[in-house]
């Protein structure tokens, strides 16, 4: 049986609705699921996430999805906390994550003009060329809501800066991730999601 064109892993927490609507506006009807066979069979997979890393990881463990996600070979996009879940670990309550993208999410640096959590529109700058960033110019703004972030490293696809630079996007092989919310990032966000749907699976 053919799988869904797009599976969204139901990782718990609010605001899945906005993500579903964003894809519907692009003409795609995603399947919200926790079923390993549906996730494996999908052409593309989204790993969203809001809330605390520990809660989200326990949910993935309880659902038996940790090894399922690690073994995926189709394009996968982690969003917000989903990005941190793809990393080795998070300093938030010192939780071990999926270990797919090297690095540990650390507490975001703040100062008086850059409070934490970082909530708002930040400009990103590409660190590498990739089809996922097609037609998205350096300096394009995206909407962020986070207190933790991955440092800039070898797998950084784009950077942003709050009190200090951090990874706005990362990539390793077929795994992609964005710290911002493309579903809330107006035209640039829609373009990024459309680009993700174009990446060969």
């Amino acid at each position, binding site marked *: 049986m053919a799988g869904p064109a797009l599976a969204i892993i139901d990782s718990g927490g*609010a605001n899945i*609705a906005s993500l579903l*609507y964003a894809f519907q506006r692009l003409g795609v009807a995603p399947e919200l699921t926790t079923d390993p066979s549906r996730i494996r069979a999908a052409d593309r997979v989204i790993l969203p996430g*809001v809330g605390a890393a520990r809660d989200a990881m326990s949910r993935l463990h309880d659902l038996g999805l940790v090894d399922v996600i690690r073994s995926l070979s189709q394009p996968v996009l982690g969003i917000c906390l989903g990005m941190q879940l793809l990393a080795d670990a998070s300093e938030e309550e010192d939780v071990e994550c999926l270990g797919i993208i090297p690095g540990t999410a650390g507490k975001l640096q703040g100062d*008086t003009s850059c*409070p934490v959590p970082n*909530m708002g529109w930040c400009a990103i700058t590409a660190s590498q060329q990739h089809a996922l960033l097609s037609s998205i110019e350096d300096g394009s703004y995206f909407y962020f809501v986070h*207190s933790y972030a991955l440092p800039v490293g070898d797998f950084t696809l784009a950077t942003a800066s709050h009190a200090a630079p951090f990874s706005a996007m990362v990539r390793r092989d077929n795994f992609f991730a964005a710290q911002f919310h493309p579903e809330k*990032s107006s035209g640039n*966000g829609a373009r990024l999601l459309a680009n993700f749907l174009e990446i060969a699976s």
Partner: protein
Amino acid sequence: MQFRNHRVVGDIVELAERYSVEGADELVFYDITASPDGRTVDRSWVDRVAAVIDIPFCVAGGIRSVADAEDVLNKGADKISVNSPALESPDLINELARRFGSQCVVLGVDSREQDGAYHVYQYTGDPDKTVAAELATIDWITEAQNRGIGEVVLNCMNQDGVRQGYDNEQLALVRQHCQVPLIASGGAGAMQHFADTFEQAGVDGALAASVFHSAEIDIGDLKQFLAAAGIDIRTV
């Protein structure tokens, strides 16, 4: 967007879409009649708004419990804003912040000068029921931050509706006591007023309703104006 009896605003979904396209960074939907009547908002519109706009939005009015907030957030809102219910029961702030995170929880404050000090006003949605709460504005904002609020929208009532500019004196004072993002509200009548509040009060955002509803100021033009004035802002 403010919905008051004395001003009929067009279909909110259509308006939300227009502002989203013009380049608004965030939309706030107020039902400022919700608290005085002791009723809550009819929330079917939240779904309809979430389906058409692709920028963050906040729902204010009628959020009296964790269940109210959850309903709104599950429908696609990014934040909920509390005002009168938080004054009645400040523990609501702690409960909301614990359940959803501070980033979701906005404090709306209606404040005006009275005898040389700034005081909080309650039930401002209905002129007949508006009362001064027994609270100094700075004290309330400090307490709310300790309880876990993630953002403050300060509506300066002396300026509200008069379009003579934001109350930058009050905003600058509150800024010194506010470690979370501070949003100016009340008084916008011209593009320069927006530039003034960013420069003079150091706010993180500026909220306005009537000048946008009446199309006197186009959001896209305003943001070009602010960017040209050297303010770090997203333009479309």
